[in-house]
Each structure stands twice: as structure tokens, then as C-alpha cells.
């Protein structure tokens, strides 16, 4: 990026996952000893999931009524957002929150699975007459759905709930489109800060893996992993697939000048971000490969890579092409596929990767290898630069470079 543009600092992290809550818990779980994933293989058999750790939502969401009106993905997201605001020293600061711009990556909300099951039974066992079936559907829909649950289902209502619960009241935008929504959200905030169009952002997403209705859409295109747990890099031999992981990840991104004015220290800065449609699509440029190559030619020294690859194919093979390219350019890179540890969290996955990268840069070290495939080598020495990649299970690719902030 233009050296005259303001630096984009990460000044707050909020992370909840199967491994726990907050940066410290994640650092401990992923960098001390041999990291192990938390996986539940029975609840959604044959699909394993990484279930959310026990979280006390009332710590971030005071009013019971608010908790009740949200779907679980929204509770996860509102909680993570609250952690990030607290971490950045913004929680409760009405003036700053009133100026904070919110950018969220979200998919669909959650359906009433029991109501859907009842309706399916009635539609399947009842009349074949279209008109009569329509009447049955109308009656059942009107009697089975709680009105307020509709709001829990709207994509932009994670943002809406963050506004209400935490008082974030600058602007509010929600990006959609599976994994790439997460890249778009971070990219929107980074570009607006670097372009002088905003100073203070809360960015992130949330994903609830413990849902059959959400898994269904991914399984329809054959993207889920229907076997017992294996690390991301080891799934290709069985056709590939991802294991869903419950996760909420929010970042406070701030212009350097704004953060310095309020005396806030950064974890790291985001110095570069790119996205594209990805391999297998037409048009020019196809993806972010050219941008990554150009970036890599300017980099020296050790580079950590937090790969957002999911395990789904052919996306995971495309990711390996990137890593090979970086190796061939002579970068001393060490890769970690954080989906092995956290599961794949779709819209929230890239923000989670950026959060983990910010944390690693602030500790000046990369995480321990997440598997024993040999692809993830043991870390060595000081590290001040981590590349985060985001890759859609069926489309899109992107990356961000997270580096030590100059003033640290």
C-alpha cells in the first residue's frame, strides 16, 4: 500500500471457539505443547463438528430478553464483538462507540428445525393437489414460526444486535457470500481506513456449527467431511471436505493516528489485502494469485502463513499451489491450517485468521504445528509477519498481510 496512507492497526481482538474465549486461551491452546482440537463426532454423525466451548453469554449480553431474541450464531457474534470492544478499550465509551463503523460477514440465520420437520412430514404425507398443499403450507407456516425468530434469520441482524447490545452506532454493513464475505468485510474496513474514509471499525463474523440446517447447504455441494476427524491437509485422499467449527471473531481496526491519539497499542497492522474470484473461474484477473506473487517478491525473511483452507477440494489443492509458489520464490514460510484446530467457520473464518495472525505477531512467534503431516514444520525464531489466506469452499480467494506495527 501507499506509504503515505494511514496504517491500519489491529487494536482489539474478540475470539470465541471450541478452544475457549479470548486471545490468551487461544494462544495457550495453540502454542503450548502439542495443540489438540476439540471435536464432537457423535452429535451430527456422520459429520464431526468443533463445538463451542462453554461460554457465559450474559457477561456480554446483559438483558435476558436480548439473549432470547437471538439465534445462537448471533449470541456468539455479539459476545465476540463485545470482547473485541473491551480489548480495544471501547466498551462503554458512548462517544467512540457512536462513531464506530460496523462491518459484519454473515450467512443465513437459523431455522426452527422442528417446525421444518413437521411441515415436511405434512407436505409429504398429505395431498398431491398443489392448491391444497399450498393451503397446508400457509397454515403451518403461520402457526409454527415465532414472529421474532424471523429477525434472527436475517443476515444483517447480527450487526443489528451488536448495535443494540453494545451501542455501536456509526454505520453498519453486512457482507454475504460464504467465506469471501469475511474477506470482503475486512477488506472494506482496511480500504476505508487507508483511504481516509473512516478511522475506527469493528469487523468480524460468527458461525454456529452445531446446526443441521446450516450444514445442509454445504453438503448439497458435497463440501462436508463425513468421516472421523483428520487434519485439513490429510482429507484430499478421501475426496476432501470441511468440518464445521463454531466460532465468533471480531477485530477492532483503527487508523494509526486515531489509536495513537487515544493511547492504544496495536497487536499488529494489516499492511495489504487482496481478493479475487479464484482458480477455476474465467475473466481477468482470475484471482488474487498475481497480487500475492507481486507481494511475495518484495518480502524477505521468515513468513508465517495462517492458511484459511477448509479441507474441501479442489480448493485445498489450489491453496497448495500458493504455498508452492511462495516456497519457489524463496520465502522461508511456515504454514498452519487453522481450520484443523478450530474447524471451518465459513463467514467468520477469515476474520478469525486475521485475529490469530495479529496475536502471533504481537507474540513475535508462530503457533505450534497443528498436525503431524509434516507439512507444518516446527517454528523457529522471531517472527514479525504473517500471511493470512482466505479460500472459499467453492469460490473465491484472498489474503491479508499482518505485520508488526512500526511504532510497537
Amino acid at each position, binding site marked *: 500500500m501507499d506509504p503515505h496512507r494511514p496504517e491500519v492497526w489491529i487494536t482489539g481482538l474478540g475470539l470465541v471457539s471450541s478452544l475457549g474465549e479470548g486471545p490468551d486461551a487461544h494462544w495457550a491452546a495453540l502454542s503450548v505443547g502439542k495443540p489438540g482440537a476439540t471435536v464432537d463426532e457423535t452429535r451430527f454423525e456422520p459429520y464431526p463438528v468443533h463445538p463451542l466451548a462453554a461460554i457465559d453469554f450474559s457477561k456480554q449480553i446483559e438483558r435476558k430478553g436480548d439473549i432470547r431474541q437471538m439465534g445462537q450464531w448471533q449470541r456468539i457474534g455479539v459476545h465476540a464483538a463485545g470482547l473485541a470492544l473491551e480489548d480495544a478499550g471501547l466498551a462503554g465509551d458512548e462517544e467512540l462507540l457512536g462513531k464506530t463503523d460496523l462491518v459484519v460477514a454473515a450467512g443465513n440465520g437459523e431455522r426452527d428445525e422442528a417446525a421444518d420437520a413437521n411441515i415436511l412430514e405434512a407436505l409429504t404425507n398429505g395431498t398431491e393437489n398443489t392448491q391444497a398443499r399450498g393451503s397446508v403450507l400457509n397454515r403451518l407456516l403461520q402457526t409454527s414460526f415465532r414472529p421474532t425468530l424471523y429477525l434472527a434469520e436475517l443476515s444483517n441482524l447480527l450487526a443489528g444486535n451488536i448495535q443494540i447490545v453494545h451501542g455501536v452506532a456509526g454505520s453498519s454493513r453486512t*457482507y454475504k457470500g460464504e467465506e469471501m464475505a469475511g474477506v*470482503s468485510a475486512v477488506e472494506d474496513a482496511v480500504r476505508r481506513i487507508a483511504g481516509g474514509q473512516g478511522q475506527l471499525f469493528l469487523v468480524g463474523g460468527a458461525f454456529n456449527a452445531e446446526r443441521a440446517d446450516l450444514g445442509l447447504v454445504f453438503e448439497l455441494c458435497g463440501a462436508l467431511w463425513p468421516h472421523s476427524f483428520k487434519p485439513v491437509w490429510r482429507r484430499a485422499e478421501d475426496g476432501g471436505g470441511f468440518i464445521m467449527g463454531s466460532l465468533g471473531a471480531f477485530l477492532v481496526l483503527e487508523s494509526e493516528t486515531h489509536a495513537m491519539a487515544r493511547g492504544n497499542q496495536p497487536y499488529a497492522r494489516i499492511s495489504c489485502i487482496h481478493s479475487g474470484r479464484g482458480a477455476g473461474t474465467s475473466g481477468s484477473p482470475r484471482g488474487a494469485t498475481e497480487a500475492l506473487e507481486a507481494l511475495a517478491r518484495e518480502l524477505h525473511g521468515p513468513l508465517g502463513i495462517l492458511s484459511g483452507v477448509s479441507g474441501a477440494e479442489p480448493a485445498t489443492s489450489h491453496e497448495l499451489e500458493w504455498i508452492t509458489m511462495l516456497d519457489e520464490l524463496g520465502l522461508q514460510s511456515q504454514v498452519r491450517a487453522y481450520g484443523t484446530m478450530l474447524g471451518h467457520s465459513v463467514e467468520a473464518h477469515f476474520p478469525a485468521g486475521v485475529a490469530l495472525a495479529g496475536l502471533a505477531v504481537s507474540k513475535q512467534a508462530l503457533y505450534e504445528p497443528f498436525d503431524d503431516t509434516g507439512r507444518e514444520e516446527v517454528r523457529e525464531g522471531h517472527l514479525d509477519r504473517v500471511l493470512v489466506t482466505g479460500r472459499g469452499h467453492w469460490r473465491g480467494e484472498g489474503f491479508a498481510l499482518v505485520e508488526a506495527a512500526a511504532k510497537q
Partner: protein
Amino acid sequence: MSKPQQSNDGEQMGKSLTDDKGRPVVVVTGFGVITSLGRGKNENWKALTSGQSGLHHITRFPTDGLRTTVAGTVDFMGLETYSAPALSTAMASDAIVEALCQSRIGDRASFPGPLYLATPPTELEWPQRKALFASPDEESREDGYKQLLKAARSGRFKDVFDKFQFASVAETLAEEFGTQGLPISLSTACASGATAIMLGVEAIRRGDTDAALCVATDGSVHAEALIRFSLLSALSTQNDPPHKASRPFAKDRGGFVMAEGAGAFVLESYEAATARGAQILGVVRGCGERADEFHRTRTHPEGKPIIGAIQAALDDAGVAPGEIDYVNAHGTGTQENDKMEYLSLKAVLGDRIERVPISSNKSMIGHTLTAAGAIEAAFSLMSIHDETLPPTINYDLPDPDIPLDVVPNRSRRARVTNVLSNSFGFGGQNASLVLSGEPA
């Protein structure tokens, strides 16, 4: 700072390529629109300015037992089988073609900029769920989602269901029109159309691109969507006759009417547009947005965020409240929206608001939800060009609490320089645009 204009036809001579804040001026060089009134801006404009309604009784699905039976569905796209993503894609594609033909930018298969797309919720609908549930290869059917997942695992439904991923509409359009980079899908609920335009404006002002394709589409009138809005008591139940169902700003207004449509804009930097000799159709002078932290469906009782969004748009445009001479209202026809919109406008424009004409396109086309902000921005530009303000129809009983000149029932000739177009959505989404005919 402003550079002197080098113009090839002299018409733009002396106009600044940058605005009062030194940013590139963003112009419209092509736009397209589809609503229940028809295909294309000319057909729509003719109907709109003659006070014609596109609302009708729903025939797409049985409406037995429903409190609301009218909508502004778009039934003329020739789809073999309806689904929200299929209709949303078809309408967006049509509107984009119209915008590109007018703009003459790039070619049909290669647009020289990114796609910003506002799309409606995309998920499996009942016909697909039922087909999965009933798939015959299983001897013993399991319960609910277990059965659905089992059918999905068979892999037999892949081709049919690919389009129910959120990114599918944007991906299809990016492929068709060769837009650059990652196609962006967004939602700010019923403010989405305005947000899509705003993202394009921001990207051009940053210098990220010279051109952007900003599109909003919504084809999501199906039984479940209608019932969900109905359960929130948001919809008009004034079903007969259908053309009287939507009554924005009238005392007897009873809710909005769901509708479908799409709007597409080619935005360019003024500099790039003039350099290639493009016809300038309008200027997006300013954009403003504010989040509401008050309630999920209701607006702040003092209208603070709406006022903030309007004020932000004026500030961004460098336009004083007194320079707004027409308002294209959000005007949904719900009791709350119309009152809050009036109070907020009054707070910004002052007592003058009673004399500034304001009309709601939704009285005729219904509430096109995700697409509304883009469609209404298109009609705002047409108001400027044609020097005609479309009416707010069904305004038979004025509401004494909302003393506005709503251009009641008949269109009116008027010269307009700056239009304010408002869009508000559930989840505390507020966005406003200031549109003008030509660069200042």
C-alpha cells in the same frame, strides 16, 4: 484539487473533476430498472408518471388463509421454475444489460470494474426441501434434517442446489458480465440498494477503480417470506383492490406491500467518463449512513440515526438543506416509517419540508426490499431529467400529523437540481443519497 476540464465536446467545460472535498466526482453513465410495472426505465417511467400501480393479487403460490394476498411480483421474466435466486439473477442481469447498453462501457462480456450486488436472503425454499425429503432411494425415511442431509450426501442434487449459496447470484453475474475482482454480495436489509451504490462511490473516490457496477435485486416473494413479514404485522392487508394496497403518508396507511425488481448502475469517475466521451446521466453527489442502536424493527423515537444519515449525505455532498428540492422517500406505508421519516426530514430541512415535494414510488411499485434503494435512485434521476415528479398514489386521506406535499395522486412538472433519496431497513439500517443532474 480541481483540475481544469479538458472536454471533447465543450459541454462539460469548466466543470470540476473533483468535488469540494477534492475527491473524484462520481457520475452515472448508465442505469437499468425492472419492477412489477415492466422492463426497462422507459416502460417504468411511463407507468410511474401516469400513476399506474404494479401491485396485483399473487398468483405465484396459493394464498388461501393468508392475511395479505397482494404483492408486486415480477411474473414476466420467463423462468421455467421460480426460486428467489433464479428470479433475482434474471432481473439483475436484465437491468445490467440495460445499464451497459446505455453506458457503452467495456463490452458485454468484460466490465472494467468491480460488482457490488445487494441480494435478498438466499436459502432452500419449500419445493427444494420437499424434493430432498421425498427422494425415493431411501427405504426408511429419517426425521427432518437427518433425512435432508442423507439425501444431500447422495450427491444427486448438486447441480440443482448450487444456486442456493449466497454468493451464487453475484458469481453468476460476475461470470456473465466479466466484472473485475471478487464480486461483492451485501445486505443492509431494505437499505441494501443504496449501500450498493455507496460502495461503488467509495471505491471510485479512493481511486481503487474508475468504474463500478452497482446492482440491487430482489425476487423473494414466496409464501414463507410473505408470511414472515406478515407475522411481524408489517404488511398491508388492504387487499382489494390491489392497486389501493400501498398508501404511503396517507392517514389510512396499513403497512407495506412486498414487491420485486432490480436496479443497476454504471458509476464512473467524471474524469474517466468524460475521457471516453460518455454521456453523463447524473451525479451521485453524496452518501450517508447511520446505524440505529435502539431496536431491531423500530426506529429511535427521536429519529436520531435517520437524521444522522440524511445529514451525513448532505454533508458528504456539500449540499445545504435548502438546496434539496425533491425527496424520493423511503415511504413504505407503515404507520411508523412514514411518521419517523417526516419528523426526521423536518429536523434536517426545517419548516421548509412542507413545501418540498416528496413522493413515494412504493405507492405504485410496492416495497422492493433489497432492491428499493437502487430502483428509487434510478427514478430519482429520471425525475431530474424528465422534469417530472412521479406521484404518491392512494393519497385520499391526508394524515394531519404528516403535513407534506406528497405530489398526491398525479405527477407534476418541476425542475429539480438535487434529490434526496432515503432507504431504511430492519436492524437499524439507514442510508441516504443525494443525486443531481450534472456536475456542479
